[in-house]
């Protein structure tokens, strides 16, 4: 059994990163230009890493499947980014952000990583402001903050409801500058389809040009996967249509362990499903819970118009059950409670799968204009999608898959179990444990890209020597041939069912049995269903067109094939973890108050899975989590 070495430095948690940075080997400035680094994905993690590494002098090749690096899905993040600046003088500190994040993650994250994240959070804000990111400001000219779920301080920086867009455009501008200077070579509409390994280390990637269909390979001394999460395994999620697990999954099949795949986040405030045609779910920022009140009718099956339901016949269930955090409980708690109400037939709207998020009190207290200034774009988006006016009647919301805490296993240096292969941002597993707090995804993506990888990658490169990677090594051709064969295979099946059909079926299985609540019986059933679906897919999938052209069905076929395999692993992981924690709620393991009941004695570990061959069971490796600073307690938001 491979021993997982997290490489967390010894010593007090507050000194680990400083000490570690000093111990890392450096690459001298003149030598940096002799190294090529491949960055896959140009979201917050990828764009910030590519820009920063190029600024340092490395040669960077960056890849994205969109037509421009500016469109990566980080752009859709709405609410904000956390930072322990304590500008509000309300008791925040690096330690408090660290503590809140470890607790919010239900004690399944690494202390060392989380502390570092909190530590560099303050630098991120400085960096973004210097780039010209237009954060919200007070009349005195200083930065404004808001509060977010799972926290009792105001530490969230925001740019109206478009914080992700503004941060990504900041990182994109830094990346663009390096492209203009020739230090980054940008490949848009190009998808990574395999990893090239030489002597057990990552030395390049195989890509498909999505316009011409050309399969090519690229060599580099290190490969950084900044490819986001895998929420689209559920078919319906708040992810972009193109978001996929392919790069990470194919690296997994080459030896990178996949950690905690069952840890998925279901976001409580999304617009409910309206019909079978639904292709995606739209999130309403969690920041809305600052001013919106969540409620359902007290009476079962009450179908009255919300305006006709008097105050004393409404159940503000979050405020009732969690008086100290109220509507601002963490996401997993809020989602589960909404489901509980709907399961009890108190759900609202035509499907009964929704609860109200009501702004009437806020509008009364602050005035409609003030509410519009804070949340205008979100209200507009809601009105656009539902055809209802949220200023007049309460929003209807329901939980939806939003983020995946699991991902490729990485050590403290963000290196996967394959030397030279790194995973940054949502693509790795390391910082959010079993549940991510709001406004922490942007923080992590940028922390990894701007402030962690520029230090840690040098340590690896310095040990390699400056010789260029041999592009004529047979490993490149082999990997290319494998990808070409796979393309041919998809096109040759000529079955009867579209790729979307399989994706939708997979989503249904995952949502029903591996969604907001799971149990052993359902998970076991899902295992069989996924196995059948996989078999059927490889027999009956229908992919039209050719390989040597823009072919969106072909692109999707590869992604769905990988999602099916990942789905099976998620189910396996959920079945293995006989406890409830954060977003992983096993119905068999709950407290008397229906909260997640952890089993710290047996499951305070990271489950890292090793691929052992096609259709073979994956091997579980455990990294035991050590809590030296934070005391493990039952999470309470009451």
């Amino acid at each position: 059994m491979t021993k997982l070495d997290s490489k967390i430095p010894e010593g007090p948690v507050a000194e680990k990163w400083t000490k570690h940075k000093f111990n890392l080997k450096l690459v001298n400035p003149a030598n940096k230009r002799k190294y090529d680094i491949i960055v896959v994905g140009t979201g917050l993690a990828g764009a910030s890493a590519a820009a920063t590494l190029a600024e340092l002098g490395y040669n960077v090749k960056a890849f994205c499947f969109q037509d421009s690096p500016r469109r990566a899905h980080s752009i859709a993040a709405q609410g904000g980014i956390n930072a322990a600046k304590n500008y509000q003088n309300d008791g925040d500190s690096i330690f408090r952000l660290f503590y809140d994040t470890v607790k919010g993650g239900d004690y399944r994250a690494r202390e060392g990583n989380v502390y570092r994240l909190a530590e560099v959070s303050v630098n991120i804000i400085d960096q973004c402001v210097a780039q010209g990111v237009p954060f919200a400001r007070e009349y005195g000219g200083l930065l404004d903050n808001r509060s977010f779920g799972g926290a009792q301080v105001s530490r969230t920086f925001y740019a109206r409801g478009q914080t992700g867009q503004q941060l990504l455009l900041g990182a994109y501008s830094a990346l663009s500058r390096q492209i203009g200077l020739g230090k980054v070579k940008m490949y848009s509409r190009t998808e990574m389809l395999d990893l090239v390994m030489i002597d057990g280390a990552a030395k390049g990637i195989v890509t498909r040009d999505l316009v011409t269909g050309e399969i090519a390979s690229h060599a580099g001394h290190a490969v950084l996967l900044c490819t986001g999460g895998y929420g689209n395994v559920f078919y319906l999620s708040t992810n972009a249509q193109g978001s996929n697990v392919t790069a990470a999954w194919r690296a997994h099949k080459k030896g990178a362990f996949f950690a905690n795949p069952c840890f998925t986040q279901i976001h409580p405030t999304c617009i409910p499903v309206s019909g079978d045609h639904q292709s995606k779910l739209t999130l309403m920022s969690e920041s809305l819970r600052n001013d919106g009140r969540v409620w359902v009718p007290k009476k079962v099956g009450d179908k009255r118009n919300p305006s006709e339901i008097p105050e004393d016949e409404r159940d503000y269930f979050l405020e009732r059950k969690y008086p100290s955090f109220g509507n601002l409980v963490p996401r997993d708690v809020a989602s589960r409670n909404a489901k509980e109400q709907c399961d009890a037939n108190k759900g609202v709207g035509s499907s009964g799968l929704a609860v109200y998020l009501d702004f009437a009190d806020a509008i009364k207290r602050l005035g409609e204009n003030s509410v519009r200034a804070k949340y205008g774009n979100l209200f507009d988006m809601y009105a656009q999608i539902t055809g209802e006016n949220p200023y007049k009647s309460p929003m209807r919301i329901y939980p939806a898959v939003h983020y995946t805490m699991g991902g490729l296993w990485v050590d403290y240096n963000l290196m996967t179990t394959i030397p030279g292969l790194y995973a940054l941002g949502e693509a790795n597993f390391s910082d959010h444990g079993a549940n991510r707090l709001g406004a922490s995804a942007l923080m992590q993506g940028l922390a990894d890209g701007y402030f962690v990888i520029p230090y840690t990658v040098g340590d690896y490169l310095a040990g390699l020597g400056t010789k260029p990677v041999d592009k004529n090594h047979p490993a490149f051709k082999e990997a290319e041939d494998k990808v070409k064969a796979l393309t041919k295979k998809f096109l040759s099946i000529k079955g009867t069912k579209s790729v979307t059909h399989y994706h939708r079926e997979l989503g249904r299985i995952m949502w029903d049995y591996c969604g907001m609540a799971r149990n052993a019986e359902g998970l076991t059933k899902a295992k069989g269903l996924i196995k059948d679906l996989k078999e059927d897919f490889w027999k009956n999938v229908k992919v039209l067109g050719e390989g040597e052209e823009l072919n969106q069905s072909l692109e999707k076929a590869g992604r769905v094939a990988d999602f099916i395999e990942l789905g099976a692993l998620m189910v396996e992981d959920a079945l293995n973890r006989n406890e409830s924690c954060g977003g992983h709620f096993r119905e068999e393991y709950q407290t008397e108050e229906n909260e997640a009941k952890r089993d710290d004695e047996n499951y305070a570990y990271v489950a890292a899975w090793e691929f052992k061959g096609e259709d073979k069971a994956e091997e579980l490796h455990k990294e035991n989590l050590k809590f030296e600073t934070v005391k493990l307690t039952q999470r309470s938001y009451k």
Partner: protein
Amino acid sequence: MNLTVKVWRQKNSKSEGKMVSYNVKDVSPDMSFLEMFDVLNEDLISKGDEPIAFDHDCREGICGMCSMYINGRAHGPKTGITTCQLHMRSFKDGDTIVVEPWRASAFPVVKDLVVDRGAFDRIINAGGFVSVNTGGVPDANAIPISKIDADAAFDAATCIGCGACVASCKNASASLFVAAKITQLALLPQGQVERAARVEKMVAQMEAEGFGACTNTGACSVECPKEISQDTIATMNREYYAAKASSKNV
């Protein structure tokens, strides 16, 4: 409802394209416009016809990827939204809907409704940034910015780079796109050092890409899904002349 959809089909950048008519049945008013295309594409696949290629990604109006020219208007009949946020309740049973790609020589068609907007990236690469490296920057609150300026900069910064402004302009001008970035950075203290050089470089690149000139028609601003004001173009022009008059670049 049942609809007739006329769509531009073009195999690749080298072949000729043509309008092809399709019937789409049982369209729900709650569907988004792109979901209606999903339904049409699934139907085409089941018949063995190649689905229509179109760009789309986030489907929540922020990534700027979707780009359909619907009944003669960029992103369709409603203002202030992208194609993905347009819902079928804006149409009625029996309607014929004409869907074309963005039309501009600087945005060549790649396939069907997909165009190449690489020119926008190249304009940003030329100067749409503040040249600061990571690290070594001052504390964020060391640079106070008036709320009025910050809000105005934000309004300009909301551009999603979709290209509707170019597609709507009779001259295929990229002025609104370029002006939005120039205005954002000209309003902020962080943008002052490179202010003159930035506008010169970005405008030069815009011209090199083959976009047309601005004749102040204003269609760009009307069709912009983020409703970026035409005033930004005036700002850009003012910045440009000021830069040229005092240019330190030789």
